[in-house]
């Protein structure tokens, strides 16, 4: 199948571009990883972000970043850590900062402004969670490799893990390319992508195993192709229903879950592609044979029969 070589090339290209983008652009880390205070406000009508930004710049908040937040009536103001103030005080002040900014904006605008909430986040927690997340991914990958090696065969473990690594790198790469914010929600999404992509890969592998055991004729490549074709409609339908769900979260689920939904949508698309093209490709490159998948005969167990 010529597509195999093309797919391998595309994937290699994607991974390389992702890695380059990650090294050059890095990720647009959210407040969870950079420390600071965030204030969420709701305006009665449409907000002019530039105007709000101007008010803040002229009143001593030069470092403030104003972003819209879900609808065009909600905004989020992000203030980086003020290094001249003690951390303890900053945390305590998050509430006052919120109130001060709300009052400042109210006095400069006719709009009905209400304070939705304010956060102080220390990067310490985010960094630790990222560490935990990274560790979680490694542990998860390890456990998966062992499980698949036991249930299937070692070559399948390599296939699954290569596919997973591919998905994660490319998803992160896309995040860095389009400069989307990477926060704790997106981190959680990364972890969910592992679960999803794995699900797909296992279903395909399962079919490959079954076909190897059942069919007496055919080269490994033919059998892998047949398995892929047999599972293709299921792969597409499941991805379709999952995407259906994710798009409904993206559109109506509210701002708080949007980052999560976008990350998962990218992950599901990449994951579907990789379980079809990457995992099986690796298995073929590793020269899977029928013997790899034969049910091992326990010595004498079958011969004794029932007493």
């Amino acid at each position, binding site marked *: 199948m010529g597509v195999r070589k093309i797919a391998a090339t595309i994937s290699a290209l994607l991974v390389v571009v992702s890695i380059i983008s990650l090294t050059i652009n890095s990720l647009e880390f959210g407040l969870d990883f950079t420390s600071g205070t965030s204030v969420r406000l709701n305006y009665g009508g449409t907000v002019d972000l530039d105007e709000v930004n101007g008010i803040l710049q002229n009143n001593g908040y030069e470092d403030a970043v104003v972003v819209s937040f879900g609808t065009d009536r909600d905004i989020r103001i992000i203030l980086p850590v003020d290094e001249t103030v003690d951390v303890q005080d900053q945390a305590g002040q998050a509430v006052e900062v919120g109130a001060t900014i709300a009052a400042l904006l109210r006095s400069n605008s006719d709009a009905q402004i209400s304070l939705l909430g304010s956060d102080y986040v*220390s990067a310490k927690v985010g960094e630790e969670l990222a560490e935990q997340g990274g560790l979680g991914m490694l542990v998860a990958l390890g456990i998966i490799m062992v499980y698949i090696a036991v249930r299937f065969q070692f070559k399948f473990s390599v296939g699954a893990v290569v596919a997973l690594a591919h998905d994660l790198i490319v998803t992160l790469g896309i995040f860095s390319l389009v400069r989307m914010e990477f926060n704790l929600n997106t981190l959680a999404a990364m972890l969910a992508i592992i679960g999803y992509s794995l699900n797909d890969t296992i279903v395909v592998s399962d079919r490959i195993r079954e076909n190897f055991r059942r069919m007496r004729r055919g080269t490994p490549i033919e059998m892998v192709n047949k398995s892929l074709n047999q599972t293709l409609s299921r792969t597409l339908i499941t991805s379709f229903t999952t995407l259906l*769900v994710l798009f409904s979260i993206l559109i109506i689920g509210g701002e708080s879950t949007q980052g999560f939904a976008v990350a998962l949508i990218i992950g599901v698309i990449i994951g579907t592609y990789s379980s079809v093209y990457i995992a099986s490709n690796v298995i073929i490159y590793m020269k899977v044979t029928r013997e790899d998948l034969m049910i091992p005969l326990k010595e004498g167990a079958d011969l004794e029969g029932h007493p």
Partner: protein
Amino acid sequence: MVLLIVLWGLLYSVPNLYPDDEALQITTEGLSLNSADIEVVTTALEAAQVEFFGVEGNDTNLLVRFDSVEDQLRAKTAIEDALGADYIVALNLAPTTPNWMQAIGAGKMNLGLDLQGGVHFLMEVDMDAALERRMNDNLSNVRTILREERIRTRGLNLISNSHLEVRFANAGERSQARSELIDNFPEMLFQNRDVGDIFILDMRMTADTILQVHRDTLQANRTTLLNRVDALGVAEPTVQQQGANRIVVELPGVQDPAQAIRILQRIATLEFHLEAEIGATSLSYEPYEYQGLLVNVDNDVILQGDRVSNVRSTLDQNGLPQVQINLDAQGGTQINRVTRDNVGRMMDILLIETKSRTNTSLNEDGEEVEEIEFYEDKRLISHATIRTALPRTFVITGLTAREANDLSLLIRSGSLAAPMTIVEQSVIGPTMGRENLEAGLRGVQVASVLVVLFMLFYYRVFGMTANVALIMNILLIFAVLSSFLPATLTLPGIVGIVLTIGMAVDANVLIFTRIREELSNGVPPQQAIDAGYNRAFTTILDANLTTFLVALVLFTIGTGPVKGFSVTLMIGILTSMFTAIVGTRSLINLIYGGRSVQKLSIGRYRSSKQAQAT
């Protein structure tokens, strides 16, 4: 069996439909409530003309319900005024589910802060400070012991917060000191080291001791926070340990975060007093209640709580519970001097906490203004006879195991709090919480409808069984969340549920494509159904098991959003395996079972002739 589980799911998810009543929960510290209290509450409410209903209660707490939030708030002020400061009046929501449902444990899900609004703090305990404090204490302890034994040293130094060194002029003095110290510091490791003509004795805290200090400190801080949170009158606060050195405080429904911060950062203190002598002038003492008795406590403070370096409840050699109190060097000298002259008198320990109350008064314009007033709440927590001149480590005996435990916690909460910093704080307004909840639930609804329509269109009758299974699955997830687990539903949790909806149909898609395949191979309908379910089973098992493993890893390692997401994902995987395999199978058996079927309504598939042609 299937029917039973479905009924169970229905029963336990239904309570979520009953809206809660606004209510006030009235409790009192340590004391029990009686019918006179109920009388006071009802008269106060009638006087204030607040409508209320459903007064119920037992010995320890009383619940009054209201129709609206305004009534609830007005009632809170009225009741607080009527009952006085010994009672805690907390805003609460009371379930309206019928009693029989509550009796079998069917209740509502707990909603996370992001769904109902409130304040969230993450506080970090400064463990280094706690260790350093303990080590400084050890250092002066060593100094005192060596002085008492008349062993000369050439200096004591703190090397790190778990390591100190004592220098000697010769090896003889060192070994003498070592044998003296080793009994007094069982939690330290001793090591000899020679540098030139200086003979050094290294004392290091063992890893176990360091861990123990960490655990004690965290526990002490948690207790302190709990006590302070209680003073806020929040109905269902969460004060939980997170990781090795952090504490999460969540206060649902708190409207004034600034006040919450003020109170959380306040430190309770301890004071040691003597009991007033009989015949002392009434100006020199104050009466306190202790276990139903009135005790006159002398006004002079003989020792401040910050001299307490460690407290723990232990057992004496006879196995009787006792509270062991360690003081620092100066505190030891102080208490020894006082108690030496007062053997036979009683020593009292007071716990002093700063609390707040809201006063309503009329201003000049006749409008009601609320004012927050802070006041000190002093409580007598120990009243014991001095048997001998007390050294710096002494014990309080004659307590029950529970009393000993409570007392040591109380003393610790008043004295030991290592410094804490707020590392994360977030305030979620109640409107934002409601919006999050509504948006999340809408997401679940729309997603379900879309998936249901698609399945119906693509798989016809079989799709319909999958849809029934899907709805059952959602019910079961809600039922499990509401009854079994003390799980809290958060926004990431809702996302987890939504994701399971997408993936739950996966099992059915696997089964149905398999059945279609069998049909295209010319297998008769009943056998095709059988084969489809059997063949797809291993695949579903493998796929779900691996995803479950991933969710389990996330659950064990993650915190916050990651944990919330993984919990619902795990529940979803388990319930969906059940509904998608067992559930649809029994439905299909109902529809197609026990008769010969010519054609299955499973959407389009290639007929056997076409299949053979390819």
